[in-house]
């Protein structure tokens, strides 16, 4: 992908989002169908924003069109794969956070994230994962008086 393609692609993607939201505004109910409601009602304000976004989007498209086709830094697919893994990891964490609880999900998340961030020392990563998770738990539990999910380790479920 060159710079021009990136700029045109970005502007086009934003214009598609704008068009989608413009369609959604037609589904907003109007309490009255007076002229004043059309000017100041719940549809009008988002439509003004979307109208201006369309103009700016078209200008961005034009700006992208006249941008030189300079080469961008080549995408390193293994790095992008690491980003994908990180996202998958966070999604897995969110899915399990409440059912399993803080102590069973946060330290593994931190440990795995350390490796995605190219940590080389297994012991150090493990120590950071455990120490940082426990510190944060203590800050929330005793400093801010907030109970984080206990999950399967909840006392009333164990006994």
């Amino acid at each position: 992908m060159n710079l021009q393609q990136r700029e045109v692609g970005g502007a086009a993607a934003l214009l598609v989002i704008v068009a989608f939201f413009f369609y959604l505004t037609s589904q907003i109910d109007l309490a009255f169908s007076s002229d004043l409601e059309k000017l100041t009602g719940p549809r009008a304000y988002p439509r003004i924003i979307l109208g201006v976004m369309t103009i700016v989007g078209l200008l961005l498209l034009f700006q992208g069109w006249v941008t030189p086709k300079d080469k961008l830094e080549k995408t390193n697919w293994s790095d992008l794969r690491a980003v994908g893994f990180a996202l998958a990891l966070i999604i897995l964490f969110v899915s399990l956070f409440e059912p399993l609880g803080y102590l069973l999900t946060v330290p593994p998340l931190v440990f795995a994230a350390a490796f995605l961030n190219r940590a080389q020392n297994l012991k150090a990563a493990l120590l950071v994962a455990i120490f940082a998770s426990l510190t944060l738990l203590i800050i929330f539990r005793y400093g801010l008086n907030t109970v984080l999910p206990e999950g399967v380790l909840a006392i009333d479920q164990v006994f």
Partner: protein
Amino acid sequence: MSDFFQTLASFPSLLSGVQLMFLVIGIGAGVVIGALPGVGPLLGVVMAIPFTFYMDPVSSMALLMGIYQGGSYGGALSATVIGIPGTPMAAATLLDAHPMALRGRASYAVTLATLASCIGGVISGLVLIAVAPALAAFAIKFGPAEAAAFALLGLTTIGALSGGSALKGWMMGLLGLLIAAIGLDPVSGESRFTFGSLYLDSGVALVPLLVGLFSISEILRQIEKPIRVHDTSSNVSASADAFRTLIQRPFNYLRSSALGVFIGILPGIGGVTAAFLSYRAAMVFKKPSDPDFGDGNTDGVIASEAANSAVAGGALIPMLALAIPGDPIVAVLMGGLMVQAIQPGPGMFLNHPEVIDGIFAVFILGAILLLPIGLLFVRLIIRLLRLPQWSIMCVVLMVSVVGTYSVSREILDIWTLIAFGVVGYLLRKADYPLAPIVVGFVLGPIFEKNFRRTGLISQGDFVGFIADRPITLAVLALILVFLLVPLFRYLPSQIDRKSP
């Protein structure tokens, strides 16, 4: 003026021990965060927002402003010791402080930067206390048309916050306005863009939006391109020599601070410009016996640090008095007040005077405390610069996710966080600025409410209504100037590029 002295005199009774503790924690954390390349005060303030949910408003602002002040200064430490500015604002400091460190005068350079930051902060705090209430007293008389016009003026700062392309910045600001429009309509109560979700009825929550956009996207970016860790020397301590500059070069301290405050008040210009402008001004007054600028000149360090620290107080003036955030961090601070159900602007001076006084006290004390905290813990902070980047990013990830969840214990908040994290990552890759989204998001509800109230009062005749309101007309004219200036800059540059 008597109010000014009354406010100063009441400082000792304004802050409780707990609030003072949060201020010290904020400054300490801010200095570390500012010193670490790739983290910075913006990310620090964003990460701290979930914690402030459990605090009273003044404690919350003590923590956030402490991080802001500490972070603005912290960048100078890494700039001096390893030659990498922890924050863009410290780039001008690097020019002279790093050569000093290379010649074995790191202690002198660090003490000088700390002292200049402290003085810049105190002077800007005094201006803040003197100017903000007067400006708010003037702004309190505004009707919805003026309030909408000022909100629109705030939105035009987006062009200046955009870095490379003003168009991209405006697009992102508009995206922020659109995101702020999600939820129940503030006037009629109709659902907008909620897809039938009850969670979205109350609108997109500020904390997952902020943390996702800045924190998660930064983590993803650093997974793709890690930042190198630098070897550092921790042989730095306070230097008495640096304190003599207070007597030898007082005008540089004053001039640079005044310039920083002035630039801070102007929306969207920020600390980097202030630091370099002040640096340039110091070059004009160079003493013949001093080393060249860029080669370890004392005035260069003072000018840059005093100015970039003074920007903070200046930037708070339009935010507190007019609800105009002129800087991305100030936009996040504004969000921090909104999390506490406090709407910045002239009404805050009437409805929450205790919070205003607390903010003033926090700001001045924060600037003063920067000196002992910065100097006492300088060795420890420099040692922290050796931490591997992966460990910092792991802590950032953990605090971001758990902190966001803790605000309302709502798992959907973490899904929102991830969604904005991915959006932020993609926007960064396409070189779109993220700060304008926050400006649009925090100003959106203020603008919409007042814009629609103007429409209702005028029965839809906006032009006729505004024509009788000189302040609104003047602000709209100013907005036009702000919008046209980048256009006039952009068009000739395009023509130059096309011509052979």
